[in-house]
């Protein structure tokens, strides 16, 4: 039996355990704890898992199950974190404890939402005015936000928002208002509003090379 552990994220307090379709064919997700912090893991036979679309989806599904079904805060790990033993993993939990605690405080009770605004091909739109309008509507509601890469020249805006669960509805409404706002060439714009996600964009925990 393998002793390698694939990590989804870090929880505080009670361990999480359930059966599911997990990464790399595992069927059980459970928790390895060091004091109050616990790493949610499944068994895996490698420390260098290949990123397939299916496994990336499973990684995300496990995080969502914990956040949505169990309403627990989890500091999400990016896809692909795998450790060679429980001992190395506990060392990481111990070493990065202050960082995990800080991240936990930031994300507790909050979800991540994403907004991309795409212009029609060759459409001439006022990027700055659109950005200002979006900021006016959304920034007051969001707890935090970060800009993301404009990886296509069709993208006018690409931002992630960290939003309190209780402000979700207000945020949805604000996005709908923006989408219907005729002042901003909305015929030439397509909105892509996504989420909720585990708050990947708002945790910045570096895990050392001691995997």
């Amino acid at each position, binding site marked *: 039996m393998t002793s390698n552990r694939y990590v989804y994220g870090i929880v505080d307090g009670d361990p999480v355990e359930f059966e599911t379709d997990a990464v790399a064919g595992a069927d059980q997700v459970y928790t390895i704890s060091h004091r109050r912090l616990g790493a949610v893991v499944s068994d895996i036979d490698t420390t260098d898992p290949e990123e397939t679309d299916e496994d990336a989806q499973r990684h995300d599904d496990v995080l969502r199950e914990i956040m949505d079904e169990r309403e627990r805060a989890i500091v999400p790990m990016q896809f692909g974190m795998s450790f060679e033993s429980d001992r190395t993993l506990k060392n990481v939990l111990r070493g990065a404890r202050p960082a995990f605690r800080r991240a936990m405080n930031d994300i507790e009770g909050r979800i991540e939402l994403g907004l*991309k605004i*795409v212009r029609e091909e060759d459409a001439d739109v006022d990027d700055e005015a659109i950005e200002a309008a979006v900021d006016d509507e959304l920034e007051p509601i969001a707890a935090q936000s970060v800009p993301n890469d404009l*990886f*296509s020249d*069709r*993208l006018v805006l690409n931002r992630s928002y960290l939003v309190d669960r209780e402000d979700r509805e207000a945020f949805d409404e604000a996005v709908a208002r923006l989408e219907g706002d005729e002042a901003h060439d909305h015929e030439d714009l*397509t909105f*892509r509003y996504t989420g909720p996600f585990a708050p990947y964009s708002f945790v910045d925990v570096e895990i050392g090379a001691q995997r």
Partner: protein
Amino acid sequence: MFVLDDLLFRPIVGIVDTLHTMALNELYDLEALEDELKENQLLYEIGERSEEEYRRRKEELEAEIEIAQEVHERLSSGRVEVKS
């Protein structure tokens, strides 16, 4: 004469080498390919690209990215030879 030849020759090899590396970098622009992969996904998500077209392009781009990664690994390890 050997010393002189060598000194004269060396800078030219250096320039050719650099130009070759630059050309390879441009031809196998990993970042541009990755951006295009993300754009392909986005255009599919907003309904501008059909599923068939999206999958076809995704496969093409992933294959190109794999080649580009290999070229970059070889470049950084100096295993790409300059042939004239």
